[in-house]
């Protein structure tokens, strides 16, 4: 990194923190601290929602997915716009009319305290651990590629977020997220334009798209139905719908964003704008990855993008074998480059037969390079069975550091930090909301509203304290995460294990007025067990867990209520 890169990075981070401190400087009560006095307009809400969902790992991992697996991940978001409409039409008016601080408050008004506490507890466990990973995952990648100390990177990222989130609450979070999204759009927009403008060998954008398509990287839609296939049209539309409904409708990190709207219309429009913009944004990030793939067709790529693992295997007992594979991979990549150039020239010459032959030759060469790369990964694993054998998350940043000019590198790094900070700040803010409203005020203070100035000040102080404590927990978990090994995947999947069940509870609350608290509570326990059984004993893709959990709660609760279990309590508001 050059001095210019450091300058851009430090100026961006300091600017974000100062802006957050300034925008969140006045908070007299919980309404100000947790809901920004309900003053936000829809553009800020929309960007805040997007910034909360898109963590740094989204921006690091998604181009890597485009590079390795093509565009099919975009299908994951097909159900999102429909979920935005459902939530805008039903959940937003209910939350606004009840003037709740958290989504879980609604559950006590509709059912009972045990249902509220169950949902709030599931949220705290899942989101508390996720906040640690939101800090850890990008820090790990940055430390590997830039040689930074992992513990210090975790600490700096977490501490910067705690400073403005604890100080300014939701006002600071929402306004900094707006600024952070601007930095992210700028960083990735500049990177995309630069990549397209610097494709080697005079390759035009049109050539690049054709080549990427022929190499299977532009597979945006797959209509085949397969429960084990993680990303196809049906899993994206149906499973993605349930994921989005649950995440945006019941996860306080998102609900807290649109509860800050100055009216129902502002909150609704923020959600709907997200439904319009999200898919094109993901498409652009995946496309960036596909273009990085094309870039490396015409210039020599590393055999493996994680330099720490490469150095480790080179220095180990399999070093000679690995170096031999590296040489074969370099030769295979050169052969592939030659054939890629031949394919582009055949196309330009307008000779379909020659283009078809060149395309076939290019596929063969790519298969050869792919075989050498797989051998290299096998040797890495043989050398160290605990080694990270997926380098998807390292592809994009590795490319940025090798090929982008000074200044733009700093801008992309600033965008990655901005993404990490934006998600973490929303997570800490929501953890603080749930801790202070659903536990402290409900079970300790027991006052429904800010009774007087002293109570209001104490509530804000408790919420600030909760933000700091959850921030410290997230940093501590991030420091510990490197020792968890494969448990990391389990923590990552935790959201999918609980989202469906929580969604089912809310759907019953919103739409099945005859079902009472005991019925939905029992149904939630049984459905959660069914989801865990799916995770442990089947190979069903995780997107479908949300469907199983949600439908399980709805059906079981309906049956139990029909059988007379659970006293009916009238709903406080209707959709």
């Amino acid at each position: 990194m050059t001095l210019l890169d450091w300058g851009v990075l430090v100026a961006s981070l300091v600017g974000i923190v100062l802006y957050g401190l300034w925008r969140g400087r006045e908070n007299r009560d919980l309404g100000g601290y947790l809901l920004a006095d309900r003053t936000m307009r829809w553009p800020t809400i929309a960007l805040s929602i997007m910034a909360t969902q898109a963590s740094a790992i989204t921006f690091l991992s998604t181009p890597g997915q485009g590079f390795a697996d093509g565009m099919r991940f975009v299908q994951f978001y097909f159900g999102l716009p429909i979920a935005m409409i459902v939530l805008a039409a039903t959940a937003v008016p209910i939350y606004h009319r009840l003037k709740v601080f958290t989504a879980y408050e609604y559950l006590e008004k509709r059912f009972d305290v045990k249902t509220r506490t169950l949902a709030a507890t599931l949220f705290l466990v899942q989101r508390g651990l996720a906040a640690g990973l939101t800090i850890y995952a990008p820090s790990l990648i940055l430390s590997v590629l830039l040689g930074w100390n992992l513990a210090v990177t975790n600490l700096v990222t977490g501490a910067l977020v705690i400073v403005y989130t604890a100080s300014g609450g939701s006002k600071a979070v929402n306004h900094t997220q707006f600024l952070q999204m601007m930095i992210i759009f700028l960083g990735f927009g500049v990177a995309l334009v630069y990549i397209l403008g610097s494709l080697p060998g005079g390759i035009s954008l049109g050539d690049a798209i054709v080549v990427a398509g022929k190499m299977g990287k532009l597979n945006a839609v797959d209509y085949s139905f397969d429960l084990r296939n993680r990303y196809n049209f049906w899993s994206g539309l149906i499973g993605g719908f349930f994921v989005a409904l649950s995440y945006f409708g019941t996860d306080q990190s998102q609900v807290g964003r649109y509860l800050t709207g100055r009216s129902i219309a502002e909150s609704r429009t923020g959600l709907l704008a997200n439904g319009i913009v999200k898919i094109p944004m993901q498409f652009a990030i995946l496309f960036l990855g596909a273009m990085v793939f094309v870039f490396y067709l015409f210039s020599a790529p590393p055999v493996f993008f994680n330099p720490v693992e490469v150095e480790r295997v080179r220095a180990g007992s399999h070093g000679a074998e690995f170096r031999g594979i590296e040489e074969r991979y370099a030769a295979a990549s050169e052969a592939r480059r030659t054939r890629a150039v031949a394919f582009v020239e055949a196309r330009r010459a307008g000779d379909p037969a020659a283009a078809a032959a060149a395309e076939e030759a290019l596929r063969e060469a790519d298969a050869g390079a792919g075989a050498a790369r797989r051998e290299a990964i096998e040797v890495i694993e043989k050398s160290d069975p605990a080694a990270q054998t997926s380098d998807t998350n390292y592809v994009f940043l590795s490319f940025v550091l090798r090929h982008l000019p000074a200044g733009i590198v700093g801008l992309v790094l600033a965008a990655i930090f901005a993404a990490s900070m934006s998600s973490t700040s929303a997570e800490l803010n929501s953890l603080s909301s749930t801790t202070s409203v659903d536990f402290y005020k409900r079970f300790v203070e027991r006052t429904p509203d800010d009774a007087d100035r002293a109570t209001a000040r104490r509530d804000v102080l408790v919420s600030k304290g909760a933000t700091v404590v959850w921030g410290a927990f997230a940093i501590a978990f991030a420091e510990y995460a490197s020792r968890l090994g494969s448990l990391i995947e389990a923590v990552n999947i935790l959201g999918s294990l609980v989202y469906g069940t929580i969604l089912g509870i809310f759907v019953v609350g919103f739409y099945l007025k005859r079902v009472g608290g005991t019925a939905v509570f029992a149904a939630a326990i049984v459905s959660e067990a069914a989801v865990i059984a799916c995770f442990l004993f089947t190979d069903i893709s995780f997107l479908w867990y949300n469907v199983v959990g949600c439908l399980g709660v709805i059906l079981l609760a309906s049956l139990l209520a029909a059988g007379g279990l659970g006293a009916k309590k009238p709903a406080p508001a209707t959709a």
Partner: protein
Amino acid sequence: MTGEKPPFGGSWPRLYALVLLNLAALIALFTWFTKTFE
């Protein structure tokens, strides 16, 4: 449905239709993109 009008689009049903149309157009575009360049 609340009495408040959306900031753009005229009415909520129109705005919801706009979001759905946008989704349908994107899926159609991606399908064309996949078929054309595969």
